[in-house]
């Protein structure tokens, strides 16, 4: 077996264990109210972290580049209540334009 095949098998098994632990172990049983309140808040932390890391992260470096311009423009578009698809398109366009002129 090649190295890549071994890595593929280990990662498949491990990743599936991580992915399925919640749905298989917790299932849809209802959690205590306090825990449920915390779980209701988790998506906010998660979405904010995904936003910031995919905007300013580059491996282990924090970088400020054209992506940030796009995300700020996305913020303005959201504040102007523009539709989801438009927000994503203007963010990409602003980032591309920033790279073009810089």
């Amino acid at each position, binding site marked *: 077996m090649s190295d890549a095949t071994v890595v*593929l098998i280990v*990662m498949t098994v491990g*990743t599936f264990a991580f992915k399925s632990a*919640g749905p*298989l172990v917790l299932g849809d049983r209802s959690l205590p109210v306090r825990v449920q309140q915390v779980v209701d808040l*988790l998506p906010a932390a998660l979405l904010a972290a995904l*936003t910031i890391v*995919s905007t300013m992260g580059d491996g282990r470096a924090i970088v400020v580049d054209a992506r940030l311009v796009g995300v700020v423009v996305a913020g303005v578009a959201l504040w102007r209540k523009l539709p989801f698809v438009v927000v994503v398109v203007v963010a990409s366009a602003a*980032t591309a334009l920033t790279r073009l002129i810089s």
Partner: protein
Amino acid sequence: MNEVDDAARKRAIHRQAASIVASVAPFGIVFGAAAATAGLPLLQAMGFSLFVFGGSSQFAAVEILGDGGSIASAAIAGLLLNVRSLAFGVIMAPALVGTWWQRAAMSQLMIDESTAVGAAQHERRWRRYGYLVAGVGVFVVWNLTTVLGHVAFAGAGDLITELGLDAAGPAAFLALLWPRLSSAPQRRTAIAGALIALALIPFAPPGVPILASMLGVAFAWVGVPRLAVADGSGPETETPS
């Protein structure tokens, strides 16, 4: 009346999922091309996209293998990137109802994008619907573009930056976050989560900052008077700090 509401909700979810699925396509092409560059045959590249199905972890593992890294270092780096799925699973578990094998099958679709679209919805059935639509959409597009990238593209990385497509993902995540920001505890959690993740980028392996952002929940009720907490706008007992 209800049917009209349902149809509108479905359309909104489809639009969210479509943008996020489209934003994944160029990265699939780049992954396929990167796998080819690292010397992986097409079948192995496809195996990663089908069975591991976790974009950033696939990139990390393939990059390390291509650089001549050990099996252990490639597998550990890849798995560390996917530890955050544990937290995603806790968020999504109540919505992913079904028999155990249905839940197992739905779990395979658990990635940033499906969890983001699912978690952005409010009712349980729409969380499940959003998760599945985005998850299946990304799964199909990710696998097709992996093949396309492997056979047809090399050095497609420029394509992503030239078209600004690397801003599409973060913009979509921000758009999914946006409606939550009108609630104070949610807003505090989001700000704290973002700051925690940002602060950890230089110090933790990729993937860990996103996992650690969940600790931002501890700041949800900071500065809220105990009275407000007692009237139901916060937890009934002590304010966490």
